[in-house]
């Protein structure tokens, strides 16, 4: 009986050590991935990382209020994407998702041209984590919630 108990304890120690090693390895891998696994660049990254024109990148941030303008051809829009610290101009021809609007989150696929304009070939709307009925939203929306919310602060 005594030897059986000992074997059990040995297995328990071994298994706990294996779990600890596993967690350590996973944490190392994740911290190494940290920058590579980001789904998009923010406007601040763009200024810092000097993304080469013509390279396919994804840009994410908030659509600046009052910045969406329609060009005369009727299908092209221009707007500004900001993360609070930096701003990037974007041009896009095509259909935008229903939730794409000023003051809310956006992720654009595309590339920079030589002048620093981001030419998007796909626009995705980024939804935030707040869910509420229209009546509640009507009362709250007067204050500029998304740009001043905890998410925007966390981005900086």
């Amino acid at each position, binding site marked *: 009986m005594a030897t059986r108990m000992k074997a*059990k304890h040995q*297995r*328990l120690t071994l*298994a706990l050590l*294996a*779990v600890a090693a*596993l*967690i350590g*390895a*996973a944490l190392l891998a*994740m911290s190494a*991935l*940290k920058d590579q*696994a*980001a*789904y*998009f660049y*923010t406007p601040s990254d763009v200024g810092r990382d000097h993304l080469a024109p013509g390279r396919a990148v994804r840009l*994410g941030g908030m659509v600046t209020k009052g910045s969406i303008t329609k060009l005369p051809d009727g299908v092209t829009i221009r707007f500004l994407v900001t993360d609070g610290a930096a701003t990037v101009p974007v041009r896009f021809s095509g259909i*935008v*998702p*229903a*939730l*794409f609007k000023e003051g*809310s989150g956006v*992720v654009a696929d595309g590339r920079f041209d030589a002048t620093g304009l981001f030419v998007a070939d*796909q*626009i*995705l*709307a*980024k*939804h*935030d*984590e*707040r*869910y*509420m*009925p*229209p*009546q*509640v*939203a*009507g009362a709250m*929306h007067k204050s500029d919630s998304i740009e001043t919310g905890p*998410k925007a602060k966390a981005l900086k």
Partner: protein
Amino acid sequence: MHRFANPARFLSIARPLTAWFGWGGAVLIAVALVGGLLITPSDYLQGQTVRIMYVHVPSAWLGMAGWAGIAAASFAQLVWRHPLSAVAARAMATPGAVYAAICLASGSIWGRPTWGTWWEWDGRLTSMLVLLFLYIGYIALANSAGKDAGGQRITAIYGMVGAVNLPVIHYSVLWWRTLHQGQSIGLTSSSIDRSLLWPLPLAALGFTLLFGAIVLMRMRALLADMKVEARMKRLATA
């Protein structure tokens, strides 16, 4: 804990518990669906698509909880060698995989009108897809590794190693910039308005009970299979 590791005692408890879990889960899910589909208001931005949440979020939780259960049972199997823990881990794999698949499918259906895309390779979506693949791998391994102690141990090690993906899924929206929104529901607070939130815990509890009922059913089936096999073997050698 050890008292219930005896298969005979387990069966005498599992039999009535299966019905309680199954019916309890069915009632809770019915209430949550009526609440979520008919009573709660629509969302100010998403409109009616917000109702997908009542299926999507509990499925995501249960898909992850299923693997946490596999990992815990695998740990118990490796350390204490209970015959029942290997059965429990195997029984959790299929319902867990189905929940993960429901989570991915419902999320995709929600993403098309909300984000404008069915699928994007961001951190949250990719790590959840990896979970589904881990489940499929687990099921294949459990079926092919054999029922001897060695084969079961390999399956258990895989079950424990796969748990590494769980914190990755959970923290993906915090560690990395993702298309998927951040966490709405914390332990003490939620950014979902109360009028929209209330069916969600009911659905989550209902999905959990249903998961429990299916796991108990599958454990009983696996135990019955083992009994049949043992008897056949005895007959063949007699």
